[in-house]
């Protein structure tokens, strides 16, 4: 109010007035263009590995796709033909075991963190531990389960087994499942809980009938992503599920999985095995891609 604002400035203007036309030779405009190009180049480099891996696996392995590939056993070294049927079943079995362990434990842990704990030291400790666990290299999970289950012959005196592989993968899945459950439940509006409790619902009924259904989609998305990640792991399975050239013989015997089959066959000096490794890579990539697409499809319900 006190400063005078005269419409005609008496002194020289502090800034020079230039034309409104774009002058591309100006330093700022040239830098602008330069950094746009740099950013675009890096963006292309970032997606390049994905496109190349997918393309390469598709070309190398996709051509081998056939019914025989999906239903037959791998051939003995030196012979041609055969398939990866046992490894496909093995991957499904081991992932199923892992899911049966990780989903109840993980969802239960997430429910505790989000609904029951009052963010005391124990909950903080569990959250921190979950973050640390998600950063533990998968090979260390494998060695841990090897020491815990395989070398001690914990399950009926068996050493390597599908069960041990499943437990190792469940350790890898656990942090994802706990974290997504925790986050998903925190996103459920508090009013919804009040509403249920305000009409005389107990805490248990509120969680099982109102909050969990409301958070179902994000939890399911997280679980599917966890499964997809676990299904592709190799390192923890080498120590635990080992490998088998035969059909699966129950949960307590070594079992073939696709990731270990790729690891074993890709370095063999036989053409047939190398071809099967490529084919298995293709099938595995497609399965994981499908799981990710399924998760995205689930996530669409959250917004709907």
């Amino acid at each position, binding site marked *: 109010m006190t400063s005078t604002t005269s419409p005609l400035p008496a002194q020289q203007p502090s800034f020079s007035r230039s034309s409104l036309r774009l002058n591309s030779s100006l330093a700022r405009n040239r830098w602008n263009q330069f950094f746009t190009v740099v950013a675009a180049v890096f963006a292309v480099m970032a997606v390049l590995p994905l496109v190349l891996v997918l393309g390469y696996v598709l070309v190398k392995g996709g051509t081998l796709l056939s019914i025989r590939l999906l239903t037959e056993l791998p051939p003995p070294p030196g012979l041609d033909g055969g398939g990866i049927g046992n490894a496909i079943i093995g991957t499904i079995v081991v992932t199923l075991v892992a899911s049966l362990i990780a989903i109840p434990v993980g969802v239960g842990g997430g429910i505790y963190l989000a609904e029951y704990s009052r963010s005391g030291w124990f909950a903080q400790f569990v959250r921190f531990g979950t973050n640390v666990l998600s950063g533990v290299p998968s090979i260390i999970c494998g060695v841990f389960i090897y020491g815990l289950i395989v070398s001690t012959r914990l399950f009926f005196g068996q050493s390597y087994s599908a069960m041990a592989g499943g437990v190792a993968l469940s350790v890898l899945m656990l942090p994802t499942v706990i974290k997504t459950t925790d986050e998903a439940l925190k996103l459920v509006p508090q*009013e*919804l809980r009040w509403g249920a409790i*305000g*009409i*005389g*619902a107990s805490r248990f009924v509120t969680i099982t009938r109102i909050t969990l259904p409301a958070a179902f989609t994000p939890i399911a998305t997280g679980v599917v992503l966890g499964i997809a990640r676990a299904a592709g792991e190799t390192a923890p399975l080498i120590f635990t599920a080992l490998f088998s050239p035969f059909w699966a013989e129950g949960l307590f015997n070594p079992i073939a999985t696709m990731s270990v089959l790729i690891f074993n066959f890709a370095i063999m000096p036989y053409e047939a095995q190398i071809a099967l490794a490529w084919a298995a890579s293709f099938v595995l990539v497609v399965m994981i891609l499908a799981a990710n697409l399924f998760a995205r499809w689930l996530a669409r319900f959250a917004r709907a």
Partner: protein
Amino acid sequence: MTTSMPSSSHAHAASSEFCMELENVGISYGSNEAVRGVYMQIPHGKVTAFIGPSGCGKSTVLRALNRMNDLIEGCTLKGRVIFDGQDLYAPQVDPVEVRRRIGMVFQKPNPFPKSIYENIAFGARINGYRGDMDELVERSLRKAAIWDETKDKLKESGYALSGGQQQRLCIARAIAIEPEVILMDEPCSALDPISTLKIEEMMHELKKSYTIVIVTHNMQQAVRVSDMTGFFNVTPKADGDGKVGCLEEFAATETIFNAPTQQATQDYVSGRFG
């Protein structure tokens, strides 16, 4: 300053006369005292309104009446809240049972992400209702004056309704479990005037069968719907800095708005303050 005793101070009148009685209630969040020294007798079958400026603790007191404050970490209550001859905060009282007999409607409409029908049936089912569910749903929706708008779309999601309809659905949901008292925490603050009017009309109907306690920021609403009014105020603490809420005056609505005994009440209801 602690509150002066309410003007109509029947010391321990026959308990049948009153639905709920508050005796020297003080509520704190952690070490922060929100409200103190509340004495109040809420009559049966009447609408009791709580008015007052923001932060005076009226919602806090309302939530104490059915132990919703239990859900807030660090919230503690001193004094006694007596309902049906029983102190609600006695250690042997089950808060779930309290909330079944004293229902609550919240500020923001919060229907469950279920169908309209299920929104009503959910509460009845978890409370062990053994009767004709269709009949109960219809009766509850009729009482909440929303039956005509929803009877053709009971299977649709509760979210498909407008805000005002959602709030009436929430009231129907609260009625469905046949509580004795319905607590309403600013039920119309998120609604347009027409929806507000519908809910107010409904409250006149409801008080024939229920005791209603309502928190409102709208003084005209308090005048329109309530029989008794409690005016809450914030006062500086006598023993140091900080402020604390208290019940300034509790009397018949007419008295509060026309001839209050306290100067602060007079200032507030005439719009000179708050």
